[in-house]
Structure formats: structure tokens, C-alpha cells
């Protein structure tokens, strides 16, 4: 489980020694608000994610068939009638994927929210308060961390008879927050001695306000990327659980499709349409989320925010890349500029 965690430093905007005060520009800030969308990667991610959300909402209504309804065409390849072919019971795979989107998105997002909330609660509190509270909370997080998540989920879901999506999301959320809590704690530790935190304390702020209004906003990037990571993890977990046949809910999700496909040896039957699309659906969802993650990173951290283009043209027509250590020179070196100054004209 490697959740792409943003590094400690990268998210603290402009605190380095190279940080320069950006000059005041009233219109510029408004434009920066949309940096997020201007980032191409993030925009693509958002669009894909939007499509998924859309289908999560309308999927069951637009699905051409009842995903569980048996038909007469058994294991048929894609056709006009069944865009993604049929299963061994003649069910329409396309409808199954459409209908399954809701459960996946619901579980993924809910688990993401739960895990993120918990990780903030535990990570930030223990990082900020320190001392005994920290010891207890981080021991707690560590305990959850050392218990392998997937087996734990398997155990818990098997205790729960007939787990609903909400329960599964709860289980995934409750078992997968500890990694983020660790990251957040480390981050908080590095933030809490910052002058601006001390300063707001010196101003007389209450502790909860310092945590909520001074610390948290600075953790946005970590929290956001943690959230995205957890959502991916939750989706993969739900699908994994369904795939190995642990989860007992009755609806459709992509894991269920894969479970049936694998149980029926879809690939060995050359029924790729049954097995491949669900996996791709997951992969694209994950990719979309990671792309959004890029955007979040670059949105919050000015250092990652590319200042417009990274490639430029010199006077001689070459393209040069902006890079550290070798500032591009735009004037043509071949034709030396006259050493003479141009003389300003007097009116």
C-alpha cells in the first residue's frame, strides 16, 4: 500500500529562504483561485471524476438492463444489444458496471471521508498537543497500523452479517486512517513550532481555534492527498473484498463483476468483455483521483505550481527549458548587442 504522500516540505507555501514577497496585484489572486482548473492534469482528472460521479447518481436509471436480470444470450461478446456483452447468466455487463458505479463511489468517498476525519482528529491533535496525549494517540494509531488492513477488514466484514455499503465504508474507513494520521502528525509537529502558530497563541487564540483555523488550512495539501489516497485505497479494498467473495452485500459493484467473471473463468472462456472493463473502470477512477491529487499539490504549493510555460523560445529560434542552475538567455548570443547605449530622446 503505497499512498502517494506529499512530502513534508512541499506543502508549506513559500517559507523557504528563497521565498520572495509576491508583488501586490489585485486581479492576480482572483486568477489564482482557478489555478486548480488551469492545471491540465487536474482538469482532466476532474472531468473523469465528474463522469464517474454522474454515473454514480444516474447509473441505475440509465442502465439499459436490470443488471441481475437473466437473459437468453449467455456469455455473448459485445454487440449492439449488449455493449459490453453478457455473463454466464445472460446478464448485461454494461448495466452491471453502470449500476455498480454507485456502490464503488459511495464506499470510496464515504470511507475516504471517515478515514480522513479520523486521521485529522488523531494526527493533528496528537501532533499539536504533544506529551501524554500524543503518546496515547500515536500508540493507538500505531496499533491500527500494524494490524494488516485487508485481513482486518476480512475479519470485521465477516462478523457483520450482510454488510451494507455503509458498513463496508465504515469498516474500511475505520481501519485505514492510521497511515495518514502518522503523516499528519509529522506534519503538525513541523508546523506547531512555526512562528505563526506561536504568534497566534501569543495573540491569545484558544487551542481549538489554533488547530482548526491556523494549523488545518496549512495542512490542506496533505489532507487532500491523504483523502485521495484513501479513496483509491478504499475503492481497491471494497473491490478486493468483493473479488475474494468476502463482502456480503447484495448490490452490484465492480468487484462483484470481477468476482463472477473470475469465478466463471471469464478469461479462460475468452470472455474478456466480462473481466476487462471493470478493471479498467477502477484504473481510470484511480487515475482520475491521482490526477486531481497532482492538481491539489500544485494548487497549494507554489513551488510545484508551474509558472506558465516551462519551455520557451530564444531569439535564435531554439527552444530552451526553464531549469534550475541554468537561467535561459533569450537574446541571441550569436549577434552581440551593440555595446552602445540607446539614447533616450528628450521631448
Amino acid at each position, binding site marked *: 500500500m503505497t499512498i502517494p504522500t506529499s512530502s513534508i516540505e512541499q506543502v508549506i507555501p513559500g517559507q523557504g529562504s528563497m521565498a520572495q514577497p509576491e508583488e501586490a496585484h489585485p486581479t492576480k489572486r482572483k486568477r489564482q483561485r482557478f489555478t486548480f482548473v488551469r492545471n491540465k492534469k487536474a482538469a482532466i482528472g476532474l472531468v473523469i471524476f465528474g463522469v464517474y460521479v454522474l454515473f454514480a447518481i444516474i447509473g441505475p436509471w440509465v442502465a439499459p438492463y436490470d443488471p*441481475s*436480470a*437473466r437473459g437468453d444470450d*449467455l*456469455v455473448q461478446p459485445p454487440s449492439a444489444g449488449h455493449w459490453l456483452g453478457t455473463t*454466464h*447468466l445472460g446478464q448485461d455487463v454494461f448495466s452491471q458496471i453502470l449500476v455498480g458505479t454507485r456502490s464503488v463511489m459511495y464506499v470510496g468517498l464515504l470511507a475516504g471521508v471517515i478515514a480522513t476525519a479520523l486521521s485529522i482528529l488523531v494526527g493533528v491533535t496528537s501532533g499539536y498537543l504533544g506529551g501524554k496525549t500524543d503518546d496515547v494517540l500515536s500508540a493507538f494509531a500505531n496499533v491500527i497500523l500494524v494490524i494488516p488492513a485487508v485481513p482486518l477488514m476480512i475479519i470485521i*466484514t*465477516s*462478523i457483520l*452479517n*450482510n454488510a451494507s455499503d455503509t458498513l463496508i465504508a465504515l469498516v474500511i474507513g475505520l481501519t485505514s486512517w492510521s497511515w495518514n494520521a502518522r503523516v499528519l502528525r509529522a506534519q503538525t509537529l513541523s508546523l506547531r513550532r512555526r512562528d505563526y502558530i506561536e504568534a497566534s497563541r501569543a495573540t491569545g487564540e484558544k487551542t481549538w481555534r489554533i488547530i482548526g483555523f491556523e494549523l488545518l488550512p496549512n495542512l490542506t495539501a496533505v489532507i487532500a492527498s491523504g483523502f485521495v489516497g484513501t479513496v483509491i485505497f478504499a475503492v481497491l479494498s471494497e473491490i478486493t473484498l468483493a473479488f*475474494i*467473495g*468476502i*463482502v*456480503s*452485500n*447484495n448490490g452490484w459493484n465492480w468487484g462483484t463483476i470481477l*468476482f*463472477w467473471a*473470475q*469465478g*466463471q*473463468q471469464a478469461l*479462460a*472462456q*475468452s470472455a474478456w468483455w466480462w473481466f476487462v472493463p471493470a478493471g479498467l473502470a477502477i484504473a481510470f477512477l484511480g487515475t482520475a483521483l491521482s490526477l486531481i491529487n497532482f492538481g491539489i499539490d500544485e494548487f497549494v504549493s507554489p513551488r510545484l505550481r508551474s509558472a506558465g510555460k516551462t519551455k520557451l523560445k530564444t531569439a535564435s529560434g531554439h527552444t530552451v527549458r526553464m531549469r534550475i542552475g541554468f537561467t535561459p538567455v533569450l537574446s541571441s548570443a550569436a549577434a552581440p548587442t551593440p555595446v552602445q547605449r540607446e539614447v533616450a530622446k528628450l521631448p
Partner: protein
Amino acid sequence: ACGDSPNANNANANKAVDFLKIGMPNGTQTENHNPFAGTSSANALGYKWMIYEPLTQWNPVKPADPATPWLASSVKWADDYKSVDITVRDGATWSDGQKLTADDVAYTYTLIKGNDALNQYAVPYDQITVSGSNVKLTFKSSQFVNQNKILANTPIVPKHVWEKIADPATDTNKNPVGSGPYTLKSFTQAGVTLTVRDSGYWQDLPKVKELRYVSYADNSAQATALANGESEWSFVFIPNAQQTFVAKDPAHHKLWAPGVLGIHGLYINTTVKPFDDPKLRQAMNMVINRTDIFNQAEAGYFHPEIKSVTGLPPGAGDAFIAPEYKGKEFSVDIEGAKTLLAKSGYQLNGKTLTDPSGKPVKIKLSDPAPWSDYQTTLEILKSNFAEIGIEATVEKPNQDVWDANVQKGAFEATVRWTNGGATPYDIYQTVMDGDLLKPVGTASQQGNFGRFKSPEATAALKAYANATSDAERTEQMNKIQKVFVEQAPMLPIGADNVGAAYSDKNWTGWPTDADPYAGAQPTQPYALQIVLKLRPAGA
């Protein structure tokens, strides 16, 4: 240079095909050659029957046929089946060279008798006596229904080895010494290799020089291995077997799945209203499309379709069907079901059936998620029941939860198996035995999960087990079947099979429909019969 390597000769052996590759989807194994331990690798892979032999062999495909003497040269049961006289074969030797004697046989049964952990079938042994090459076993009750379990399913072990073993139940029997034609060559967690004995076997030695057992992680790995020829013989459910297995090598890849006296069916919790009404259950029984289930859920072979209304499988069960039900077969009869329901006070309003009290009839079908054939079955049942307005939902609880619920009677309907045996007794006993009846909430481990209450059936089952004549048995069996058909406490669907998927590319001589001399599962005692019959292909 590599003479001391355990793999040296193997690499060469790979070229000439004098070995047979047997696979089972049972996951990793730890070394345990104890033939009595249910959890041993010897049991999971079935190779215990290549090392240890039983007294007799019986053919589950033809359960009414008499058993074949094996280590016993003759077996004589008393009429009341409370004792048996066994004459031990002369000429069999253990793989360490010692002679196999009646003492060994008596020792084996004494061992089981004195050790509950080894007494798998809970047989009430009484006396075990030896005289010469004869052994006499007596029992505290009639063992008619258990006769084959006692004689054909008990591996005989050498006394001189086992009497030195402190705890026979937990010993791993590192160096198995048996009377069978094979000895252990090597063990790894992924598999076992047996090699044929040089001499001393009481029959002709088999042609297969080496048996290579491989334990695959799961069904799909095993099925893949079968399809690509890595595995030549296994017992595993192969989805869409025609296409995924047979079609890969139509000339050699064969499936043979004869039904036996053990069935799978939909248990209905008879304490839940309105399913306590046998009429409703009968109507449901009438709309089940068993052919669809057979073809779509069981890949057209795995659980042979049950045709007889008595729930007895075709072939193995034919001999036991009561005269009144001979030739009576299931067929999908939706109209008939509707009429029956209407007559019994049910109403079909559009797509919803309501019971006489006016409540819509709904049923929850449940089975563990990983059992995909059961799951498919449930899906089909669901749409079948919808035809008469019963709204079914399919639940997929965790296997343990499901098992606990089924035992406690906390379910509405579930597809499950019955016990199997040499007579239909085991089937019906699992479903209807009033002695097993426990109140809802208390686990009933042995059977009667549907809480079916029928003093008639209970009495008949008891009478059958203790009968002393065939005539009496037939009479009781007919009574039992009548209750089963009329009350429909469980809706039979498919039979258990003792078949296999195999390849006759390298070895021929497998049992077939034409010559069903034994079952074909590689883990059962008769596997040895098959191995003994195999001949190199082309020879």
C-alpha cells in the same frame, strides 16, 4: 557433480512420461502423512490411498453392487449388521518388508475405537477379536448404513509402526509405511511425489512409476492447470468446462461426473411462515428449472441434474426409487404451480403472490459468496420463483456466518448439500431426521437445518437403519420417499458427483460411462483402482 541433489534425476525424468500429475485445489500443505487426520496433506491430496489400503473397495457409482474385497479376501456381515467377519488377504506386505496380518487389521480398528479423534464416522465399535487370519468386529448398533465407511474407508496401518507412535491423532507420520503400491518420495508445500514400490505388492504393480500431486491455490488455478495440461487429473469445478477445459484439447481432455447418493438442494426453513405450508413448498418445487441450473450453474456436468421427484440422483439412485415414483420426473410446470397455489388459498396479484393471510410471499435465499455455482443457482432460483410471484432476494453472507445461521435455523432458504453414503438413507436423514431436530437458535450440527418435523419420517429412518432384512428396508425407504415428495422439506436440485476432469493424453484406462468400474475422484479410496488400471497411451 550434482549427484547429491534431490532434483537431479527429476530433471531427466521429465522427458519420459512415466508419471502422472494429479492436482487438487487445496492450497499450501504442511507435511503430514497421517492417514487418519482429516487435515493432513495425505488426506487433502488423497495420496493416503496410494500408500494405505482399505479392506474393501466399493463403487459409489453403483452403490447397490457388492463391495470388492481388497486387503480382506472375504467379508461377511451378520444379518443385523451388528458384527462382521473379515478374512485378511494372504501375501500382502508392508513397504518395509513385513507381512500384513490380521493383527494389523485388528490393531487399526482398536486404534480407532480407543481414540475419539480418529473415529471419523462415530462408529460404535464393541468387540475386536482376532483368530488366525480372521478378524471379527462387533458393534453396539446396526451398521447397515455405515458398512462401507467402516470397511472401505478405513486405511489399514501396520501395528509394528503405529504402536510406537505416542499420539496417533496428531502424529505427522513422517515415514509412512503402508501396504499400497506407492511409497513417499518427496514432500514440498506445493506437492508430493510418490514412487512405485519395487516389489512386495500383493497385485501387479501399476504402470505409473511416479505420482506427482500438486496442491493448487484455488479452483481457478487448478482449472487453469488442467486446461493447459499442467495437471492431468483432478476433481474441481470448472466453470463452462466444455469451453475452458475440453475445448482446449478435445481429443484428450475428458470430464466424467457420475452422480452418487448425496445431493444438493434448497433447504427451506419450515418454521418460517408461510413456508411452513407444504403446498407452497411443492409449488416452488414445481417451478425450479433444474436444467438451467445444471447447464448454467454447474457447467453442464458438475452436479448431475436430479430428475426423479424423490430427489434420488440418476444412475446411483435408480435402484432405490419407490415403485409409486418410478418414472415420475421433475418438469417446470408454472401453470400447475399456480393452480396448486390458488387451490391452497394463495393469490397472485400481477407479479406478487400473497399468502392466505394476505401478506406478500417473499423469501431470502442465502449462500456464501465464494461458492459461485451455488450463487448462480440462487440467481436462477430467484428468477424461477418470480414466475409465481415470489419475490426472492439473494444474500451472500460470510461462510462462517452462513454456516452458523444455517445450523441455528436462522435462515429462510439456502442451497446446501446432504451427507452421502451407500444408500439414500444419508440423504434423507440429513434433511428429515427428527432426532436431529433442535429448536431454532440452537445449533443442529448434523442435519435437519430446515427444522422439519415429521414423526413418520423419523420413525421410518430409524427403522431403516436397524432393519435386518432387505424387504423391510425397501418398505421403510418407500415411506421415507413419500414424506419427502409430499412435504418437500428440501427442494432437490443436483447430485454430488464422484467424477473427475482428466487427460488421457499420457495414460488411458479411466472409468467411463461405459465402464464405470469406480468413481473417479483422485482423493478417494477407489483412486488406487484407477491408477492400477492406467496404461501408457499408445501402448
